[in-house]
């Protein structure tokens, strides 16, 4: 989230799109209700009318996979009608930058496309460079290559008719959302966009989110109270796990993972540290070398010295362009390239798409270690229905895991608040928490290395490690230490004392931090700030529900990111009634500002978007893998043979696999005419591995269902409660029909398109409840994140003669 949960109450318009907020965030939904109490308009745009829609002012049904046309139409509406916030756009965005000659867009393809590799040469999209290497800027916007003009041109094709034809949303409904939301393009109004996996799980997932940032920047809704782009995180600590580099392509604190061409720290820093020619740009990532060196120091301690490049050479390096994400790991297992491994905290045999392939793939492993609370479809894959366990070779070690309430430590919530949790009860039986599994395991490996030797022993033995896991010890290591006696201002710190703020982290080995964005969370002066539960606030903070002394928030306890964009050039809030920060003539008051500098009108002032190189928010940037402007492409499996935006039907760069088990139905395949979208539900959590084992929860949602319209049910001769068989190009699945008015047929490109929806919470280890919905879903992935397109594929369905998975 750019903002935080409580802040949603400050919004004048709440657009929930790509999220089912009431069902998946039932407690936090109170802040959305609070916005409504304050007079906000609540809008839900989603294929299905859900419990969220029931509490909104209105619901607009949208065909799954058409968020870009929907938002592109809004962008066109804003630009064509001049509804954008001009001061904000002129002063705080790169609307006036001139784009270089290499950029072009023609019939759905950007310049630089190579069909053989399905990749773009992004250098073609570079901005024009002035003599100083900086951007060429035309504040008059007369240059037709200005970002704002190219953007206008790009989205001029997103007319109400085109958008309505593709999305299945009536023009009236489009205008209803556009008018209500764009009314926030005034300095005294705020609109927030709330999204979740409904946006990420598409082959255009990143571009869905990027387009929302274009809308919010035009309306001046970033950095202000009640604004922002807010990812509603689906797991209590998914924000924390992302911050600490759960994903392969970054290391803690949002630094790229080292790659093979960067053999030295200097090479790494050169490739990863942006340089700006804009004098009043803070270019915060210019500090990256300090954070990376401090991270290496945290990892290797005294062994990390300037002479040995702080042990940088010990880090594994990625091959450029290789994809090491989980879907590619599963493909390598399918192709017998991986022999054994650990699967923890995830249930791929139920939750990953194209599950039939996943299940066959896992049989190829010689050994597998899982750590779970309950047996799952993954731990028990070798004895799944329809296979003879005697023919499966995998040796499975199932370690009993503690539940999250059986351990102490921090959780980072959607709003980036770091909150300490104490252990509620001891783990049952022999169960251990994750760290008490990993730390002894790694110590065993270290002992074996010491005694028996092995490949690259330094990487294992020189680590600044521990004998026994202590969550407080690691929380302090994350904050970071001084490794030499140091001075900050007048204050002296001894070696071993905690670093007070990331501003003092250095690239010379005198400081460490396992994650710079968390530096300041535990200090000598204030102790463990994640434990703070003090509701005190100033009257200014009280007006917007900002509690600076309750827990701690990264970065530096800043509750609303980019808050310098909430004030004018003189530091005065655009909306004094809901001020986030304000310059009182000598200092900032309110929230922690994005940097200490005075307002923009002061010669020492800095531009507000400090995390981008040139300080201005990017309508047009270096660009994700699929283009500098979001463009509509149909899902990998689509009921359409064409769409009105271009001849390029689906994304030219989405990723997929090519084994005999990776099938994607051709466009408008008459065998699979129905769109399937999948989702979670309030009563079960994700794949259901935990909650299916809670009898009272299973009582409320006992079996797999498929929600469908009355019209489709009638067409197929299906009655409410009947058993149904669904099939896709990849597999079959049984479900119980839930025939409902909450899903209605779409009229798309002049013809009727049916859509059905299913949860994915049920699996065969809970008998008679149904089995993985993901046997139907498609292995097609976003080109930037490799997140699978779980939200849209094509299926057919019929009434079941007899059910075997559900009883």
């Amino acid at each position, binding site marked *: 989230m750019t903002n935080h949960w409580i802040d949603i109450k400050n919004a004048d318009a709440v657009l929930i799109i790509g999220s089912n907020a009431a*069902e998946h965030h*039932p407690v936090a939904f109170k802040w959305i209700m609070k916005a409504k109490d304050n007079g906000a308009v609540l809008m839900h745009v989603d294929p299905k*009318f859900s419990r969220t829609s029931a509490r909104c002012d209105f619901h607009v049904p949208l065909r799954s996979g058409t968020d870009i046309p929907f938002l592109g139409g809004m962008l066109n509406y804003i630009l064509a009608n001049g509804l954008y916030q001009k001061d904000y756009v002129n002063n705080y965005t790169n609307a006036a930058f001139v784009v270089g000659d290499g950029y072009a867009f023609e019939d759905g393809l950007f310049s630089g496309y190579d069909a053989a590799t399905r990749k773009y040469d992004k250098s073609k999209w570079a901005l024009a460079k002035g003599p100083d290497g900086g951007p060429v800027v035309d504040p008059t916007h007369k240059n037709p290559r200005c970002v704002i003009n190219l953007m206008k041109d790009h989205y001029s094709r997103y007319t109400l008719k085109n958008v309505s034809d593709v999305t299945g949303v009536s023009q009236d409904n489009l205008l209803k959302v556009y008018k209500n939301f764009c009314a926030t393009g005034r300095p005294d109004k705020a609109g927030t966009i709330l999204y979740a996996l409904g946006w990420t799980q598409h082959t255009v997932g990143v571009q869905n989110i990027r387009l929302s940032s274009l809308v919010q920047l035009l309306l001046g809704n970033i950095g202000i109270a009640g604004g922002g782009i807010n990812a509603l995180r689906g797991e209590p600590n998914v924000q924390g796990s992302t911050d600490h580099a759960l994903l392969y392509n970054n290391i803690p604190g949002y630094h790229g993972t080292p790659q093979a061409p960067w053999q030295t720290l200097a090479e790494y820093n050169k490739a990863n540290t942006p340089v700006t020619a804009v004098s009043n740009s803070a270019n915060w990532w210019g500090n990256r070398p300090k954070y990376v060196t401090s991270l290496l120091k945290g990892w290797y301690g005294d062994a990390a010295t300037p002479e040995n490049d702080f042990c940088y050479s010990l880090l594994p390096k990625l091959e450029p362009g290789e994809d090491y994400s989980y879907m590619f790991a599963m493909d390598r297992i399918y192709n017998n390239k991986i022999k054994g491994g650990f699967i923890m905290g995830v249930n791929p045999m139920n939750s990953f798409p194209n599950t039939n392939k996943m299940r066959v793939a896992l049989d190829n492993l010689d050994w597998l270690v899982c750590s779970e609370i309950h047996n799952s479809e993954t731990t028990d894959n070798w004895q799944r229905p329809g296979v003879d366990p005697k023919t499966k070779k995998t040796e499975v070690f199932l370690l009993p895991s503690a539940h999250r309430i059986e351990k102490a430590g921090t959780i980072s919530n959607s709003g980036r608040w770091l909150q300490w949790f104490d252990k509620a009860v001891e783990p049952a039986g022999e169960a251990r928490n994750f760290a008490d599994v990993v730390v002894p395991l790694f110590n065993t490996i270290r002992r074996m290395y010491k005694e028996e030797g092995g490949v690259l022993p330094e990487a294992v033995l020189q680590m600044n490690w521990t004998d026994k896991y202590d969550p407080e010890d690691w929380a302090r290591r994350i904050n970071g230490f001084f490794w030499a006696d140091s001075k900050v201002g007048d204050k002296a710190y001894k070696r071993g004392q905690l670093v007070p703020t990331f501003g003092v982290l250095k690239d010379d080995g005198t400081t460490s931090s396992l994650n710079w964005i968390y530096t300041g969370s535990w200090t000598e002066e204030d102790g463990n700030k994640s434990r703070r539960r003090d509701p005190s606030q100033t009257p200014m903070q009280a007006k917007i529900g900002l509690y600076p002394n309750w827990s701690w928030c990264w970065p530096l306890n800043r509750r609303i990111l980019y808050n310098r964009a909430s004030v004018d050039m003189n530091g005065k809030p655009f909306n004094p009634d809901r001020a986030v920060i304000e310059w009182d003539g000598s200092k900032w008051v309110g929230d922690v500002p994005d940097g200490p500098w005075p307002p923009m009108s002061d010669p020492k002032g800095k531009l507000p978007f400090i995390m981008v190189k040139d300080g201005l928010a990017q309508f047009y940037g270096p660009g994700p893998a699929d283009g500098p402007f979001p463009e509509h492409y149909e899902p990998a499996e689509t009921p359409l043979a064409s769409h009105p935006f271009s001849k390029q039907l689906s994304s030219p760069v989405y990723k997929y696999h090519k084994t005999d088990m990776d099938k994607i139905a051709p466009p408008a395949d008459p065998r699979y005419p129905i769109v399937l979208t999948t989702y979670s539900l309030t009563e079960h959590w994700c794949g259901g591995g935990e909650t299916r084992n809670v009898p009272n929860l299973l*009582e409320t949602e006992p079996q797999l269902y498929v929600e469908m319209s009355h019209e489709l049910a009638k067409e197929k001769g299906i009655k409410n409660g009947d058993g149904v068989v669904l099939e896709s190009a990849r597999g079959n699945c049984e479900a119980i029909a839930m025939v409902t008015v909450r899903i209605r047929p779409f009229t798309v490109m002049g013809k009727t398109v049916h859509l059905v929806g299913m949860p994915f919470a049920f699996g065969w280890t809970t008998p008679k409840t149904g089995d993985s919905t993901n046997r139907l879903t498609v292995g097609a992935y976003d080109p930037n994140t490799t997140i699978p397109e779980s939200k849209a594929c094509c299926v057919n369905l019929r009434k079941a003669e007899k059910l075997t998975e559900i009883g």
Partner: protein
Amino acid sequence: MPKTFLVDTTRCTACRGCQLACKEWHDLPANHTKQLGTHQNPPDLNPNNLKIVRFHEYINDQGDVVWNFFPDQCRHCLTPPCVDVADMAVPGAIIHDKKTGAVLATEKSSKLSEDDAQAIQEACPYNIPRRDPESGRLTKCDMCIDRVSAGMQPICVKTCPTGAMVFGEREEMLPLAQKRLETAKKRWPKAFLADMEDVSVIYLLADTKDKYYEFAAFM
């Protein structure tokens, strides 16, 4: 002065936290249920579910989907007809606690015959009590009398995340109910407070009662 619940269905998201919390607090086992083509599960009140959320969906005259949620429970009537009917068969089978207003089925209710229990259920304007075939006892919401006597809120109210349920002194709840009604009427002109004069569990309904559940309101 008796206690009163206000259940504002215009704030309910049907998360069913109340339904689950009720089971957990009363230590009631799970039923074996099946998917019957609805999210409403278990389908009805039963000895193991003293509170369930009922779902009702339809398309209104404007062509919009309406999905109403009704967290159903005993209304703890101010003059409970079930007490009178039960007293005719087994005195003390159901009692009315004057202090809290709670209407409570006691151990003595196990002495009621099946026919008596049926008569009590039929006398209830809201079709609430259910007979446990194993113990023979009548089962229904007990207002969390143990919690309320200890100065705590009923567990369903405590659990509700959106403020759809409020519990307190009747004199405080009545004006709050009126205030909520005024707000609701701006959006839903048909909104009303169901049987407010007669019950301790006042529902704010946005729609006619048949658009929730046939026993949602008596009047």
